[in-house]
């Protein structure tokens, strides 16, 4: 799900930097607030967690691999804005040190994996959780559903971004200049394996950790401690 450099045109990559910049600013503001509550260690911890989780590649149907991203879990624990910061930092290190994703594509990747995925998953979690408290079964199921929906929306988004490239940028004879596959190829290739396997992995991770922490550390979810109001 990490778009590498070269797959998006410089215009598209630049547009995503412009789109994500104000979100980063809002995220920074939220980090400043959380700082006053003594949650810097948590932000640091969750950033490192995001980095590590994305190293666990699992085989997907079609001979490719995928991985969970942890963004929804981070959003449930610390809020979607903290999730954007944590995932962005992990993506930056992945791109700079390990050639995973890209530096030009960082805006797009942060938008997909750091913003849309955690926000969508968090929304689903809040919607399904209802009045359930940490430790309730419904709380964990809502978290799992959030993880599942979040990663799949992100996968669809990546597929659309890649699939639009040949439409936006091609030679007069139609030869693509950047990512070469059309939407009809990218969407099934990205979305189907995530619906079946990677989504399940994200659901198990998100639901499992939420269930464990909800049972043994319910204080993490108390009002005013972690989740933003």
């Amino acid at each position, binding site marked *: 799900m*990490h*778009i*590498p*450099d*070269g*797959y998006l*045109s*410089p215009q598209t990559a630049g547009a995503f930097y412009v789109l994500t910049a104000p979100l980063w600013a809002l995220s*920074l*503001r939220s*980090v*400043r607030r959380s*700082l*006053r509550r*003594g*949650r*810097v*260690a*948590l*932000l*640091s*911890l*969750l*950033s*490192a967690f995001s*980095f*590590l989780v994305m*190293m*666990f*590649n*699992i*085989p*997907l149907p*079609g*001979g*490719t*691999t*995928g991985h969970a991203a942890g963004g929804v879990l981070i959003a449930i624990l610390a809020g979607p804005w903290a999730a954007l*910061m944590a995932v962005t*930092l*992990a993506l930056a*290190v992945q791109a*700079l*040190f*390990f*050639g*995973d994703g*890209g*530096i030009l594509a960082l805006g797009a990747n942060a938008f997909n994996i750091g913003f849309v995925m955690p926000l969508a998953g968090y929304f689903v979690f809040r919607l399904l959780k209802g009045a359930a408290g940490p430790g309730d079964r419904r709380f964990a199921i809502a978290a799992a559903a959030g993880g599942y929906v979040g990663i799949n929306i992100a996968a669809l988004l990546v597929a659309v971004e*890649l699939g639009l490239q040949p439409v936006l940028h091609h*030679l007069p004879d139609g*030869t693509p*200049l*950047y*990512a*070469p*596959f059309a939407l009809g190829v*990218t969407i099934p290739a*990205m979305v189907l*394996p995530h619906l079946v396997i990677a989504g399940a992995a994200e659901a198990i991770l998100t639901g499992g950790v939420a269930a464990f922490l909800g049972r043994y550390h319910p204080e993490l979810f108390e009002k005013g401690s972690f989740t933003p109001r």
Partner: protein
Amino acid sequence: MKYHKAWIVLLMLAILTPLGIIAAGGAWGEWDLDGVRERVGFVPEGMRSSASGATESPLEEYTVPGLDGSFFRKGLGTIMTAMLGAGVTALLAFAVARIAGHGRIS
């Protein structure tokens, strides 16, 4: 240290990362230029000029130069890159919080 149990969990995750390199194949749509040529028949022009390659990191794809051959050696490299990457990411988060908070660290 705050959340010391959680940090221990992260350390365990880092040690388990070689599990993540067992799966064959790479992610869809993340091929290098050779991989693109194989699948498309050619390398799109813009891709060739703007793709990374000129600035390849020595730790590309979470490997450590010299640590290859057996799964054990490769896995060792994976663990090293996991610890380095997670450590740098954690430090970056502290740095961002410090900048955001004008030096106040709790």
